[in-house]
């Protein structure tokens, strides 16, 4: 056994059996969809509620910080199923909601997003990672990680 406390990578997706879905494959599908959002969306916001109907003060602060910086936001509501929050925490190593990711990298929660927005550093981070024109035509979208659909 290694002495190090290194966190184990999630095992790669198990082969799926056609017809039958076990709880295990559902969980790994969910983890896969969450990972997909984190890695492929320019800015991902995991929040309670949606940008149209925010269900928590901290989620609202993170969203407003991103809006103030003109960021495109892909939001994921974690409330529909507790497993979303659980899988997310395992992937990110961050215990609380909301969580903001830019180009696959965790920026932080509500307090960090707000501090960075107020100092102007959020714009700098967005420019560095997404390019100077990141806010051109920036939109807000919602992804449903349970079904894989987006709106």
């Amino acid at each position: 056994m290694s002495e190090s406390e290194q966190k184990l990578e999630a095992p790669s997706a198990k082969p799926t059996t056609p017809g039958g879905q076990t709880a295990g494959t559902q969980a790994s599908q969910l983890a896969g969809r969450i990972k997909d959002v984190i890695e492929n969306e320019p800015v991902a916001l995991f929040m309670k509620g949606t940008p149209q109907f925010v269900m928590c003060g901290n989620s609202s602060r993170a969203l407003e910080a991103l809006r103030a910086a003109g960021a495109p936001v892909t939001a994921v509501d974690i409330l529909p199923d507790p497993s979303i929050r659980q899988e997310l925490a395992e992937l990110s190593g961050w215990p609380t909601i909301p969580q903001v990711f830019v180009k696959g990298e965790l920026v932080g929660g509500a307090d960090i997003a707000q501090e960075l927005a107020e100092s102007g550093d959020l714009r700098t981070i967005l420019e560095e990672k997404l390019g100077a024109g990141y806010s051109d035509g920036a939109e807000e979208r919602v992804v449903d990680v349970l079904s894989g659909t987006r709106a």
Partner: protein
Amino acid sequence: MAVERLESLLQDAFPDAAELRVEDRTGGGDHFQVTVESSSFDGLPLLEQHRLVNDALAEPLRDGTIHELRIKTRGTT
């Protein structure tokens, strides 16, 4: 009381803290504002500073004591 529990966990994690405050934001005993000034944060990016606080409070975060957490960290330099 939850405030005392959080304070003592933070004191253990940041024994040198120049400032250490836990406020019950709503009076309900589950929404907290935590403020810590410590040399442990010197030179660390904000994300890592907050991670140290989250780590110190891992247990109350996990067991549901903390419903909402706001963090303010400051280094000493």
